[in-house]
C-alpha cells in the first residue's frame, strides 16, 4: 500500500516537473552571462535585462500595447459580462436558456477561426489594425470567463438579505449595489484579473489583428523567436512569467482557496 503511494507520489512530482521545466529553463537562461541559451546558465548576469529594457520596441509592446489593451479589455469585458450574468441569474425572460449557451460560445470556437474571421471582418469594415481592434477582439475571448465567474458568485447569494433591504425601504437598484455587489466583489475582482490575463497572454487572435504599431508582448516575442535569438527574449518571457505568477498568487491569497476557470 505505502509502496503504491510512493509510486503515485513520484508520478505526480514527475508530472509537475514536466509542467514547470520549460518555465524554469526560460528564467534560468534569462540570467545567463553567455550569449547562448545555455542551461544551466554559464555564470549569472543581468546583461540581457539591460539589453531588453534598452529596446524601445519591447517597452512599447509591453506597456503601450499589452498592458493598455489588457486593462481596457478587463474593464469592458467585466462590464459586459457582469450585466449579462446578472440578467441570466436574476431574471426570467424569453430566450434566457438560449442566451445562457450563446454567451459561452466564444470558448468553443477555435481561436484560429476567430482570428481569421476578425481579420477579414475588420478589413471589410475598412478598420486598420489599432488598439481598438485589439480590444474589441480580446473582449470577445475574455467575456465568457466573466459571465461564468460572476454568475457563479451570484448563484451562491442568499436572496433573503437583499429582500430585507428592499423591505426596509431601499430601492431595488440600491439594494443590489449595497447588499449583493459587496458580496460578489471577489467574483468581480477575479473577473477583472482573468480578463486581463486572457488578453495579456493571447497570441492566437493577436497575431491576426495587431499591426506594426500595435504589436502585443506575445506577438513581439513570437517574431523575435523567429528572427533573432538571444537570451533577451528569455528575459522578456521572464517578465511575463513573474507578472502572471504574482497575479495568480494574489488571487489565491484573496480567496484563500482554489481558483479555477
Amino acid at each position, binding site marked *: 500500500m505505502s509502496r503504491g503511494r510512493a509510486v503515485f507520489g513520484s508520478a505526480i512530482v514527475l508530472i509537475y516537473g514536466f509542467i514547470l521545466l520549460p518555465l524554469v529553463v526560460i528564467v534560468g537562461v534569462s540570467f545567463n552571462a553567455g550569449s547562448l541559451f545555455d542551461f544551466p546558465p554559464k555564470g549569472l548576469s543581468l546583461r540581457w535585462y539591460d539589453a531588453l529594457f534598452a529596446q524601445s520596441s519591447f517597452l512599447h509592446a509591453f506597456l503601450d500595447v499589452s498592458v493598455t489593451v489588457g486593462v481596457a479589455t478587463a474593464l469592458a469585458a467585466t462590464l459586459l459580462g457582469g450585466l449579462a450574468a446578472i440578467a441570466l441569474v436574476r431574471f426570467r425572460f424569453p430566450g434566457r436558456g438560449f442566451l445562457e449557451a450563446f454567451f459561452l460560445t466564444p470558448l468553443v470556437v*477555435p481561436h484560429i477561426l476567430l482570428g481569421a*474571421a476578425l481579420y*477579414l471582418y475588420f478589413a471589410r469594415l475598412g478598420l486598420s489594425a489599432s488598439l481598438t481592434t485589439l480590444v474589441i477582439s480580446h473582449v470577445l475571448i475574455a467575456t465568457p470567463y466573466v459571465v461564468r465567474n460572476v454568475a457563479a458568485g451570484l448563484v451562491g447569494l442568499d436572496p433573503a438579505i437583499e429582500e430585507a433591504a428592499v423591505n426596509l425601504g431601499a430601492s431595488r437598484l440600491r439594494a443590489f449595489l449595497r447588499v449583493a455587489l459587496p458580496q460578489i466583489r471577489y467574483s468581480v475582482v477575479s473577473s477583472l484579473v482573468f480578463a486581463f490575463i486572457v488578453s495579456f*497572454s493571447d497570441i492566437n487572435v493577436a497575431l491576426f489583428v495587431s499591426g506594426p504599431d500595435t504589436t502585443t508582448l506575445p506577438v513581439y516575442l513570437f517574431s523575435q523567436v523567429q528572427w533573432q535569438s538571444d537570451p533577451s527574449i528569455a528575459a522578456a518571457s521572464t517578465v511575463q512569467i513573474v507578472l502572471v505568477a504574482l497575479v495568480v498568487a494574489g488571487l489565491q491569497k484573496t480567496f484563500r482557496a482554489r481558483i479555477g476557470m
Partner: protein
Amino acid sequence: MTAISHTAASLDDAGEPRARIASWGTLLAAPYALYLVLVLLVPLGIVTVYSFFTYSTTGVALPVLTLRNYAQLADPYFLRLIGRTAGIALKTTAICVVLGYPLAYALARAKGALASLGFFLLLTPLMVSPVVRALGWYVLLDRNGLVNTVLVACGAGRQQLLFSEPAVLVGLSHLLLPFMVLPLVASIERIPPSLEEAARNLGASPLGVFRKVILPLSLPGLISGAVLVYVESASAYVLPALLGGRFVRMIGNEVYDALLVSYNVPQAAMLTVALVVVTIGILGASMALARRAIAVGRASR
C-alpha cells in the same frame, strides 16, 4: 411597491407580470448579446461566404460563387495535412488523459497548503503566454539544449529533436494539460472518498478502484476536458510553427499562411470551415465510440 414586486419577480416568476420582468432581463443581457452578433456571428458568416468566393489576384476575392476551393481538399497535400492535424490532436488528447488523471486525482484529494501550492503551480503556466512556453521547449530541445546534453551523457548521442512531430506533441500536451486537469478535478472532487474506501474494503485493488469507481463517476469531466484539448490542439498554429517548423505543418499554419503570406483569402476561409467541420465530425465519432464502449462495459459487468 414596485421595488418589492421586482425582487419577488427575480427570485421566482410565479404570478408576476411577465412583460416588466422580461424588459429588465433583456435590457441587461442585450449589450453582450448584440456584441456577440456583431463581433462573432457576422465575422463567422463573412468567413463562410468567402469560402465560396472565387480567388482573385488583385482584390480580397471575387464575389462569384464556386465550389472550387473545397475541391482542393481532394488534393493529396491537403488530405495529408488534415490527417496529420487530426492525428496530432488525437495523440495530444491521449497524452493529456494519461498525465491528467493522476494529477487531477491528487489535486482533488489534496488539502490546505499543499492544495494551494498544487493549483498555483498548475495555473501559473496555464496563464503564461503560449509563446513563452513554446520558447521553453525550444530551448530544451535545441541541438545544445538540456535534453540533448542528457542524451549525450547517457551515451544515446545528439539527436535532432526540434521540428519533429514528437516535439509538437510534447509542446501541445504541455500547453493543454491544465484544460484536461481542471474539469477532471471538478468531477473527482464530487466523488465521496467513502465510496473508494468501500470499494477497497470489499477487496478492490487501486486499479480496480480507479476502473470501477473513479473512471465512471468522473466521465463528464473527462469528456469536457478531452473535447477542450482536442479542439485546441486541432486548431493550434503558433506552437507547430515554433516547434514543428516547415516539417510538421498543421491546418492552422496553412490558414495563417494563406491569409497573411500568400493572400489567398478564399482558400484560408475554406480551410477554417473545413477545420471546424472535420473537428466536429471527429468529435462526434469519438463520442459515439465512447458511448458504445461504456454501454458494452456496463453490459459485461
